[in-house]
């Protein structure tokens, strides 16, 4: 399948000339004279070339933000002189790296890390007092001293920016000099001239520099370049073909960027991720949190807490109003780094070199994505999250659009009474259509025209990300989120339909033959789900609770995932009418393919077929071309039609899913222990997180979270290990087991390896030494019957495995 989002050839070639150093100069540069004298400028070129203005005030504000980011320099990032100098001209870190060898400092640092709780200063001081009592002759840094040393070591810069006390705007960009909120009029400063409220940005540059200081850690960052080399070597005629999609490097968008030299060996590839979240379930406590992940790390390291870089934290309790003004400091800084380059230490050559930062993805759930991509949202006429050309339909006099492909019977709604849509032939979003649409919106003549253009293009205003010189072409830098759509929205929709609790029009009096999860059947189904939990290995994560009791008590995405895609094909067989059950099975099969641990390329075309049929059959089975059921057809159903093309474009979707973001918010939330001042505390926790991550990068020795094999295990190679328990001494198979089957099985296996092996074993008394558990390369631990039946408390069963089986292992055809 072709990359459906790649931009037109002209638009792609222009920025690629000729070296990575020049590509940093920035996109707004007009095309070289003479190169395109006759060709009219494309919309993308027009957007990038001129100082645009618009008749629409909110677009003008967005354009001002964009203009500033395009002209970003490190001088204007808000850093003080010293920080700026250090970022641009870092010192040779040799002495710094050696400082850990001072035992006194090492001890102080260990203690600092050990005391990273809420009352860190208090804990540290107690430890220090106790230490000095025991060793009165020695010295130990005070808490303030060690804090300052850590600050200096890591170079983390926390930028505090004023914001409206009611969270309407951040005082950034065009709002930077205002004394009052431009939206609600609340004053920015208190009576004494101090800021009333601020949000935090942890500047990216120093956090990245820290990641490169240590030679050992820096090697971890070579993963992307190495795997790129390997794939290039395996390619034929510039075409990369992979039998498994293992990472974003197998996606076509990556190779477009490699071939156009937007990404080189000197690049560092980043992923931005942002999300709004509520800290407390029962009261307004919205925060906005964003992070950067470094995609030059292998996936096994990339998503670890220590590898994730905190970015922006906006305190609540109200959600940010103008998101662009809050994203601004961070994106501005990134733009400046992209334009100027970032100096990083190369341990092997003992010198500094320039790094090109490339932003591959900006991810968010569908709601937050509207703030990043400035897309209209899922109820719009062009409400597809992937900005494809699918046009929605609305109910007569309704304002919400639904992406129903099939035209309802007797439907004459103007603007959306088009014939049936063939989804397989639907044009996907491209950079060209995106910028055409964007320019149309910018050129709106007046408010009415603007509202029409917004509706017809699905774009509300320019995205701040359009101002970055090194990024996947818009809108392709905004990938699918496979957490909220398939794991929350779709299960919610399907279960409401099956339970008959979905919103039903008064005119819809026909029986819902699929609504079978009612009364006793629903209660029994709930019990069956609860009973299935003990058969689910612990490594699968949280098992779904009984939905009969708990479906309205914050059923989690991971519970839905296992329930709908893991359990339901089995548990709803003979319960859902067969057509509806098979329809579900189609979805489960396709989604498991796309989100499996290893995405097998050969399975993708089948998965795509199933997704397309699922979307179509959903309309035939449930909505049935009824005007009063248009509201069944949600964007979450339509989104499935994009998942396989997205996988081909950007690699396994689970690698850019929002799980990471959710986890970061979750464990930051847990770390807030001072609930009287949660927001201030959260900022402190994020600062500490940034500093500790940097410390661990600089001094990998400090890490205590390495996960070595459990004690007394036996490494058997290839990522496998035998784990205890183990027999104390070898036991005789003949005497120990009551039946002959065990002995027979071992004999047959030995014969298959050669008769002499059997003879040798028989001669030595037919003894074995059993082990209870096996660690697998994928990190799972397979247990055994011996292990699980011997335990006092029966654990969730983890003794069943998938195994490559050959009939030579047995003498009958099981």
């Amino acid at each position, binding site marked *: 399948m072709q990359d459906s989002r790649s931009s037109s050839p002209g638009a792609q070639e222009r920025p690629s000339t000729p070296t990575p150093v020049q590509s940093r100069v920035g996109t707004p540069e007009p095309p070289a004279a003479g190169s395109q004298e006759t060709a009219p400028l494309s919309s993308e070129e027009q957007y990038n070339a001129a100082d645009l203005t618009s008749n629409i005030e909110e677009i003008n504000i967005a354009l001002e933000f964009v203009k500033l980011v395009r002209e970003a320099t490190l001088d204007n990032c808000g850093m003080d002189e010293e920080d700026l100098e250090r970022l641009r001209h870092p010192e040779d870190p040799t002495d710094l790296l050696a400082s850990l060898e001072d035992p006194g400092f090492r001890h102080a640092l260990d203690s600092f890390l050990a005391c990273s709780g809420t009352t860190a200063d208090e804990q540290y001081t107690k430890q220090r007092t106790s230490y000095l009592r025991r060793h009165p002759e020695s010295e130990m840094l005070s808490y303030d001293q060690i804090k300052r040393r850590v600050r200096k070591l890591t170079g983390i810069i926390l930028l505090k920016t004023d914001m409206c006390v009611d969270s309407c705007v951040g005082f950034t960009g065009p709002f930077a000099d205002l004394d009052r909120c431009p939206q609600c009029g609340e004053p920015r400063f208190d009576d004494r001239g101090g800021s009333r409220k601020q949000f935090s940005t942890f500047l990216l540059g120093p956090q990245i520099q820290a990641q490169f200081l240590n030679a050992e850690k820096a090697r971890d960052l070579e993963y992307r370049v190495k795997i790129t080399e390997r794939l290039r070597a395996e390619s034929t005629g510039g075409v990369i073909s992979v039998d498994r999609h293992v990472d974003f490097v197998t996606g076509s968008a990556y190779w477009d960027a490699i071939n156009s030299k937007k990404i080189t060996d000197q690049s560092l590839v980043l992923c931005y991720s942002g999300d709004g979240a509520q800290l407390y379930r029962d009261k307004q406590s919205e925060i906005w949190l964003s992070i950067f992940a470094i995609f030059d790390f292998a996936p096994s390291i990339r998503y670890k807490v220590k590898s994730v870089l905190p970015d922006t934290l906006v305190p609540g309790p109200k959600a940010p109003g103008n998101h662009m003004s809050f994203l601004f400091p961070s994106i501005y800084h990134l733009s400046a780094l992209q334009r100027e380059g970032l100096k990083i230490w190369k341990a092997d050559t003992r010198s500094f070199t320039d790094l090109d930062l490339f932003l591959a993805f900006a991810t968010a759930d569908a709601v937050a994505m509207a703030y990043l991509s400035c897309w209209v949202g899922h109820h719009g006429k062009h409400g597809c999250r992937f900005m494809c050309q699918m046009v929605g339909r609305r109910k007569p006099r309704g304002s919400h659009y639904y992406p129903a492909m099939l035209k309802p019977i007797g439907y004459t709604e103007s603007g959306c009474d088009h014939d049936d849509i063939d989804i397989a032939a639907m044009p996907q979003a491209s950079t060209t259509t995106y910028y055409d649409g964007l320019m149309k919106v910018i050129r709106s003549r007046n408010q009415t025209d603007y509202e029409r253009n917004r509706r017809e293009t699905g774009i509300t205003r320019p995205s701040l990300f359009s101002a970055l010189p090194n990024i996947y072409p818009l809108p392709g830098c905004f990938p699918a989120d496979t957490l909220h759509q398939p794991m929350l929205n779709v299960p919610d929709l399907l279960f409401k339909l099956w339970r008959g609790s979905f919103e039903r029009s008064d005119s819809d009096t026909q029986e819902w033959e699929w609504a079978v999860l009612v009364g006793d059947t629903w209660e029994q189904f709930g019990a069956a789900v609860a009973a299935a939990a003990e058969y689910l290995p612990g490594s699968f994560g949280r098992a779904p609770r009984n939905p009969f009791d708990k479906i309205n008590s914050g059923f989690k995405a991971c519970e839905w995932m296992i329930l709908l895609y893991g359990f339901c094909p089995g548990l709803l067989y003979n319960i859902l009418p067969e057509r509806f059950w098979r329809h579900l099975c189609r979805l489960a099969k396709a989604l498991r393919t796309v989100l499996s641990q290893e995405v097998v390329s050969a399975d993708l075309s089948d998965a795509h077929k199933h997704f397309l049929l699922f979307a179509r059959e959903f309309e035939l089975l449930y909505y049935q071309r009824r005007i009063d059921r248009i509201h069944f057809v949600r964007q979450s159903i339509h989104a499935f039609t994009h998942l396989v093309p997205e996988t081909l474009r950007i690699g396994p979707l689970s690698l850019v899913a929002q799980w990471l973001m959710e986890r970061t918010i979750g464990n930051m939330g847990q770390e807030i222990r001072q609930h009287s001042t949660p927001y201030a505390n959260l900022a402190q926790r994020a600062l500490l997180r940034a500093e500790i991550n940097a410390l661990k990068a600089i001094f990998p020795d400090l890490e205590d979270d390495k996960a070595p094999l459990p004690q007394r295990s036996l490494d058997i190679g290839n990522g496998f290990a035998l784990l205890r328990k183990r027999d104390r001494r070898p036991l005789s198979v003949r005497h120990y087991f009551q039946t002959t089957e065990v002995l027979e099985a071992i004999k047959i296996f030995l014969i298959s390896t050669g008769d002499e092996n059997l003879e040798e074993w028989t001669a030595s008394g037919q003894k074995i030494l059993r082990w209870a558990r096996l660690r697998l390369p994928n990190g799972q*631990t397979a247990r055994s019957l011996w292990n699980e039946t011997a335990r006092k408390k029966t654990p969730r069963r983890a003794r*069943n495995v998938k195994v490559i089986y050959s009939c030579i292992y047995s003498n009958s055809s099981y």
Partner: protein
Amino acid sequence: MLYKKALRFAEVQFYFNLRIDDRDTPLALVSVFGRPEEHLRHLSFGALLVCSFHGIERLVVVPAKAIQSVVGMVPFLQTQQDALYFVVEKMGHIAGDESPPDAPDEEEGEDE
């Protein structure tokens, strides 16, 4: 002679090492589930794999490293037949993998 290799599901009884060709070879004694029931597999587009379990009647030794992953085998109670289980495989990737570590090791450390 050619031996066809296929993915099958199995319950592990225990793991052990044997000297084979003068090398310690890690093995697993497993009870192999029957092949997925074809009618249901076909009807469900491969989403529902129902396998029969036969306990010690189908004990087989396999190389420990032939084990690919841990799966859930959930009792399939929708038909009259006994000892049927359906397969649940782990989805999702390492990204934000929150899965708790398997049960604490100290509990399992005692030798027998």
